[in-house]
């Protein structure tokens, strides 16, 4: 039976992100990093530095205190 693999995509709303880095710390694939730029509130934010490493596990979203991260099917 063919297994249908679904690629999951992780998005960060950079304006909601406060740069707490909890997601960067928890990511088992070390796919996330802090940006060098700042958002409108003057805060640096998390970026998906290595998108190919993301497995969509959701640990980042789980630890995010600001609902900045969404995980969706990558269509």
């Amino acid at each position, binding site marked *: 039976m063919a297994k249908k693999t679904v690629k*999951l995509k992780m998005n960060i709303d950079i304006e909601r992100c406060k740069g*707490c*880095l909890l997601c960067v*710390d928890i990511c088992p694939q070390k796919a996330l990093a802090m940006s060098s730029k700042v958002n409108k509130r003057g805060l640096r934010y998390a970026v998906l530095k290595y998108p190919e490493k993301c497995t969509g596990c*959701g640990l980042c979203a789980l*630890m995010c205190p*600001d609902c900045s991260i969404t*995980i969706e099917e990558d269509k």
Partner: protein
Amino acid sequence: MTKKFTKPRSMKDAATHYCPGCGHGLIHRLICEVIDEMDARENAIAIAPVGCAVLAYDYWDFDTMEAPHGRTPAVATGVKRILPDRLVFTYQGDGDLAAIGTAEIIHAGNRGENISVVFVNNGVYGMTGGQMAPTTLLGQRTATSQFTRRADKEGFPLKILEMMAVLPGVTYLERTSVHSPGDVMNTKKAIKKAFHLQLEKKGFTMVEVISPCPTYWGLTPIEAMERIKKEVVKEYPLGVVKDGG
């Protein structure tokens, strides 16, 4: 299997005023996830504290009201007695619950009020600038324990959950944390259990959540989570303190 993770329906769009890495944002979201999963949005009435979470009504998309500092369980009592089939819960910090509101929380528990309490314990008074809380650890420096908390002058960290356990009207007490994904999931489970017990009319339920305050602990958010893991849970052990449900 498609996995989706988004902001819960019961959470409003507004970005929160909480500091980066504050536990409130996490715990707010968990409460909203539970309320969504229980389809309880139209049934929920929350009583917000005085403290950093005083603005909870800006973030929760269900009926939320204010209470004077510490009186939250008394206000919740008034609401729940009038509307016994609603999901009535309080959300309180360590000043609101363990200092000024100690009489109210004990007596709400002693009367076996059928309400749920989410007690956010971050060992410090955030809103007012980082003063000592009843739950501040010995040896912790705060704005009002400038020489660190000393037992002979400032007393000991207060264990409300353990105190409440002796009350027959209290059904379920659990202490959880948010310092790791597993603990975040446990917190959500505990809140869900408390809410279900309430709707089953099983009595008073309370979840104490050990939460970080990076700003007034003087740590980065990641370090703050580490501090919970290494220091705070030694003083405030995680787990079920009472389960009569």
